């Protein structure tokens, strides 16, 4: 590489903006498809537990009696499998990553969905 070539590269590097970003201060690059973390909407969950069965890392646990839906964010691999299979569309993917945590644990959500009284199917009434 000749001298002028080197000067060209050096000048370009000096004059152009840095390629890296100062991440915590500047927001990271995100796209619409970025898999950040899973959001649960308790008002729409019909307690079918498909998400629990389809989770490859077994991070989701649904308790029909206690009406709770829990996720272990440390087990979750954010594969989008539960979001794709959810029939009630109560799960969605957010593009932001979860913040670092200092202790392991699960996040528990309450299912507030109340079945509309209209259709008389054989499903058991909820309270």
């Amino acid at each position, binding site marked *: *590489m000749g001298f002028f070539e080197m000067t060209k590269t050096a000048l370009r590097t000096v004059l152009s903006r840095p*390629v890296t970003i100062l991440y915590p201060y500047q927001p990271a*690059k995100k796209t619409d498809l970025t898999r950040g973390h899973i959001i649960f909407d308790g008002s729409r969950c019909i307690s079918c537990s498909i998400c629990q069965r389809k989770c490859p*890392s077994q991070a989701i646990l649904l308790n029909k009696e206690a009406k709770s839906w829990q996720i272990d964010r440390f087990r979750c*691999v954010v594969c*989008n*499998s539960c979001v794709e299979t959810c029939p009630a569309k109560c799960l969605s993917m957010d593009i932001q990553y979860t913040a670092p945590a200092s202790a392991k644990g699960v996040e528990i959500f309450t299912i507030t969905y109340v079945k509309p009284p209209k259709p008389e199917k054989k499903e058991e009434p909820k309270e």
Partner: protein
Amino acid sequence: MTKQIIVPFGPQHPVLPEPIHLDLVLEDETVVDVIPSIGYIHRGFEKLVEKREFTEYVYIAERTCGICSFIHGMTYCVGIEQIMNIEVPERADYLRTIWSEYSRLHSHLLWLGCYADSFGFENLFMNAWRIRERILDVFEQTTGGRVIQGSCKIGGVRRDISNEKLAEMSRDLNSIRKEIEELTNVFLNDDTVRHRTRNVGVLSREDAYHLGAVGPTARGSGVAIDLRKTGYAAYGKLDFPVVTDSCGDCYSRCFVRCKELFTSIDIIQQAITKIPEGPIEVKVTGAPNGEFFCRAEQPRGELVHYIKGNGTKFLVRSRIRTPTLTNIPPLVKMLQGCELADVPVIVLSIDPCISCTER
């Protein structure tokens, strides 16, 4: 005869991205023998296949490797599809090809960076990784994940890429090609780099063949084996050369990878012009009953997924043989007779991916 001493190399070493341990038997400064040992990051993926449904195992197969993850997932899916006689839509095949080639670009650029670092050229390392960042951005825009794409599934692919996006990717690759030309110019023509890599770690054609070298390690020694020529996914419909070089030293292996970057760009652009419209997945019912031996070309060489099912949701056996495992015997051969100072360059020249190797 001089006294022999043993110098341990790894498992933790500045040039090694992942842990592998080599016991170097030295006579003065010359390496006379090498005793490799692996087993630091075994994760038991092959056993896990009995505990997860075959559809879920795609995610696990993909996590075998952090660099060529897409190709691992794809090979597993192709294996299952062959057992179950599923015909994948043509568009899905093309999309798989495009993502595979992006994986190759990403992996080779990563390797070029690590390689530059191994002979102490920090600036070149940064430059290679800057280009790699653009490839990762494309991955994130099209699949949602930068490293683990999760876009391959049994029976097709999970996400489609719109035609506008494909055209944009193709245009983008033209500017990436210019940057890569500038980068590979340094790797191939710079005197200092050439001095560190020429005639270092020579592997003859016979040795490469008999010791079972695969991928760029074999092609650098003149063995023209490229599994993409077997025509899996959409490779059969695309036209591309098999890059080989004859010297078998570190420079040759670097040369092969540098030229493969351009081949990959050509393949992606060809695939983008030829991609047909249509569905991207077919519905899968039933469970695999039978066995299949599926091979694909990873950035590092030949990857083998052996899959056996018995008609239930859980597979009976999965065996993954990765390219680095077969490249370790050639590596031992290359290291015999080299200088101690050249060991990092030679070890890096096979592009070791130890997580893959130990599964």
